[in-house]
C-alpha cells in the first residue's frame, strides 16, 4: 500500500467536526468515491471523532489518500492520548457504552468501512485506523 497524500487535523472542539467531515468528503470526492461509500466513510469518521472528543478531550486525525493494487482509498487514523480502553472486545460490542450513549459508535463504524483496526493502552491513549476503498470493497 502506498500513501499518495497525507495531512493532519487537530480535533479539540465540537465545532472542529464539521470542517473535518468536509475535508474527508473532499478527499473522497477527489478519488471518485460513490456517494453511498462517501456517506458510510464520513459517518464512521463522525462516530470516531466524537469518541475522541468525548473520552479523550480530542486528539488528531491523519488523513491519507492511499493506493493498493491500483485501487485508491482513504485512510484515516484517529490518535488520542486519553484514558485508553481497558477491554477492547467489550467496547466493540453493539450496545456497550460507558457514556450513556447507544453504544453503536465503535461497532457501527467498523461495519461501515472496509478495514478497521484499534489499538489502545490504558492511560496512554487509543489509535483507531480505518480504510475505505473507492469502490467500497
Amino acid at each position, binding site marked *: 500500500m502506498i500513501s499518495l497524500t497525507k495531512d493532519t487535523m487537530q480535533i479539540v472542539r*465540537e465545532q472542529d467536526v464539521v470542517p473535518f467531515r468536509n475535508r474527508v468528503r473532499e478527499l473522497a470526492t477527489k478519488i471518485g468515491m460513490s456517494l453511498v461509500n462517501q456517506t*458510510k466513510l464520513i*459517518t464512521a469518521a463522525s462516530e470516531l471523532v466524537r469518541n475522541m472528543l468525548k473520552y479523550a478531550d480530542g486528539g488528531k486525525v491523519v488523513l491519507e489518500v492511499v493506493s493498493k493494487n491500483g485501487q485508491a482509498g482513504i485512510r484515516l487514523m484517529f490518535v488520542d492520548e486519553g484514558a485508553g480502553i481497558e477491554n477492547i472486545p467489550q467496547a466493540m460490542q453493539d450496545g456497550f457504552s460507558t457514556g450513556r450513549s*447507544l453504544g*453503536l459508535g465503535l461497532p457501527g*463504524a467498523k*461495519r*461501515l468501512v472496509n478495514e478497521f483496526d484499534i489499538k489502545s493502552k490504558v492511560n496512554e491513549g487509543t489509535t483507531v485506523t480505518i480504510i475505505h476503498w473507492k469502490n467500497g470493497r
Partner: protein
Amino acid sequence: MDRIPILKMGPFLLVTIQVDLYDRLALNLESDLISMVSKTGARGVLIDISAVNIVDSFMGRILGNIASMSRIMDAETVVVGMQPAVAITLVELGLTLQGVYTALNVEKGMELLYKKVDLLSEQDDTIEEDQDPHDITD
C-alpha cells in the same frame, strides 16, 4: 449560539435542517422543539432532513428522543426527505430509528401527520355537536 429555526404551521411545527449538524446544535434543536410543543400545543412535528448528508448514531438518537418526548407531550413526529445514502448508512450502522415515523417528502409527511393526529375527524365531531342531535339519525 447557533440555532435551527422552528416554524409554526397551523397545528404543526416545521423544521428544515439546512446546515451540517454538530452535537450541540442537535441538542439545542431537541430542547427548543420540546419547549415549542409545550408553548404552542402543537399536535405534530415535521422534520425535513433532505439537506442533511450525515446522520450518525448521535443525531439518530436525537431524532428518536424528539419523537418520544413529543409523543409524551401529545404530538407526533415525522422525519421526511432522508437521502438514500443516509438510509443505507443508518441501517448498516445499526440504527433503525424505532418509533420515528418517516415519509419521502414534506407533502407526504404532512398527509401522514394529519392522519396520525386525526384532526379532520375532530373537526367533524365539533360540527356534529353543533347540529341538532335528532337530525343525524337520518
